[in-house]
């Protein structure tokens, strides 16, 4: 459970006037997540007057001008998503996705603990734009204090007429893929909470008979800021094609792991340095367990979707796991792959059988097998699982492993020749992964 006992001033948002238009600025100023402090800092959210028929159009146009893209991992333009659901049918639901199944990510938990009203503002605004009849906030049940914090915030809003659309808090089981859109909607519909096969993503997901707009909690918080302060203030930070600030969770071999609000476009190295790496940075796992490794040479890359992708990295949901030189990249990759194999929902053969095979190959490589064909075989297996599941889970693992083979190529070659590295038995820098042995099957 995050505890903000020690904070540091944010060096990236220097203009005091724009300080208001940040996600965590309110927390720094008020140190209180309650409604009164939120209103004192931000003022009332610009909810529509009853009977204002043009408001949804204007809200959608505002979001489009801001250039906001989703902060849940796919970086999909939020205005396009809003339009897709708006054009489907009136009514429906807004789903606040704070499942955060990624173990190395803590930003959504931080948002809901410290600035829940910003997220709820965004949800209410989106619901009004859609004519939605309900809002559902989804948090994982492993953190009952987060769910409690959200429920408290919801209860505070009801008497003050800041909740035109009713809000419900639900706790789907917190597995890795539970936050995948179709899996979440499946659970809310009473199903097993497994992703569905969506060959055509333009058809909106449905909850009951109404369309569902599923957004990451951070995306909705940004919508609340944009609606208040305007697209220009959002675009004041960041880069022209990647505007705004973003929350990044930095962990791994660092002294100050935590959630940082950064302007998109800041260099990767500057962000990592904020968290004080314990020794020289060898590599960074970007985007989460299904993201991609980048080497120390990429630390000068601006942190935004396009430049990071060009450098072989991933912005995704803003996750950075720092690997210092005193660690074995192959061993860490093997641990991640093993965890991800266990998190398969078991629906698609290539994922169910392929991921454990990849994890096993990596484990043998990390242990130092004397097998010249090991790397090639791993590459072939990875190619077999890529793109062959219903969701992007195996794709993420494929991407992560491929990037590991590229970034840790030298280590892979040495291990393949029978030489395990000295750091293989160092404690892992990954978030404590419990449960040893094979996945339950």
């Amino acid at each position: 459970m995050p505890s903000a006992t020690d904070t540091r001033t944010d060096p990236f948002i220097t203009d005091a006037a724009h300080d208001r238009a940040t996600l965590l600025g309110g927390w720094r100023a008020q140190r209180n997540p309650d409604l009164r402090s939120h209103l004192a800092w931000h003022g009332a959210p610009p909810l529509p007057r009853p009977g204002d028929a043009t408001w949804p159009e204007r809200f959608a146009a505002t979001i489009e001008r801001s250039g906001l893209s989703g902060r849940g991992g796919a970086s999909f333009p939020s205005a396009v998503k809003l339009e897709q659901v708006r054009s489907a049918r009136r009514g429906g639901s807004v789903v606040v996705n704070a499942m955060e199944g990624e173990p190395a990510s803590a930003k959504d938990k931080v948002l809901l603990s410290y600035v829940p009203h910003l997220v709820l503002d965004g949800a209410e605004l989106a619901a009004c734009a859609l004519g939605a009849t309900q809002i559902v906030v989804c948090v994982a049940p492993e953190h009952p204090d987060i769910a409690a914090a959200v429920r408290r915030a919801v209860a505070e809003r009801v008497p003050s007429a800041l909740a035109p659309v009713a809000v419900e808090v639900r706790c789907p089981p917190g597995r890795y893929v539970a936050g995948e859109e179709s899996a979440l909607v499946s659970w809310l519909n009473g199903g097993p909470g497994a992703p569905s096969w969506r060959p055509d993503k333009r058809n909106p997901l449905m909850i009951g008979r109404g369309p569902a707009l599923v957004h990451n909690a951070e995306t909705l918080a940004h919508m609340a800021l944009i609606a208040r302060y305007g697209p220009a203030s959002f675009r004041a930070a960041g880069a022209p094609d990647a505007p705004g600030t973003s929350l990044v969770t930095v962990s791994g071999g660092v002294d100050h792991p935590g959630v940082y609000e950064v302007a998109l476009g800041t260099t990767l190295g500057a962000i990592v340095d904020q968290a004080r790496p314990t020794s020289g940075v060898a590599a960074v796992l970007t985007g989460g367990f299904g993201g991609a490794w980048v080497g120390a040479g990429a630390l000068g890359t601006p942190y935004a979707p396009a430049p990071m992708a060009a450098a072989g990295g991933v912005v995704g949901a803003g996750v950075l796991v720092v690997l210092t030189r005193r660690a074995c990249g192959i061993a860490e990759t093997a641990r991640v792959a093993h965890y991800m194999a266990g998190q398969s929902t078991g629906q698609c053969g290539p994922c169910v059988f392929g991921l454990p095979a990849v994890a096993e190959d990596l484990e043998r490589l990390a242990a130092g097998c004397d097998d010249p064909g090991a790397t090639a075989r791993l590459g072939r297996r990875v190619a077999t699982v890529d793109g062959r599941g219903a969701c992007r889970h195996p794709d993420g693992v494929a991407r992560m492993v491929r990037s590991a083979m590229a970034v840790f190529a030298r280590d892979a070659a040495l291990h393949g020749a029978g030489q395990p590295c000295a750091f293989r038995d160092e404690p892992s820098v990954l978030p404590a992964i419990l449960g040893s042995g094979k996945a339950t099957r």
Partner: protein
Amino acid sequence: MRSVAETVIKVNPIACQAYGYCAELLPELVTLDAWGYPIVDGGPVPRHLVELARRAAKDCPRRAFLLEKARIRQAPTGD
């Protein structure tokens, strides 16, 4: 560039239970991975194989092998 309506193969990975009938009927377009699941490319089905592809779609015990019409962009001939 013109776009042409072509038949493409799509496999529903959740429904598929690795019966392998598709690979038996259409070895030219479907190969099986190490665990018996089909690997298909998303490209257009050649004219002379469309009938077999329809049969594979009909025979699949789990209705996982599907044919769809997609518009594929084609470079003008004579390039």
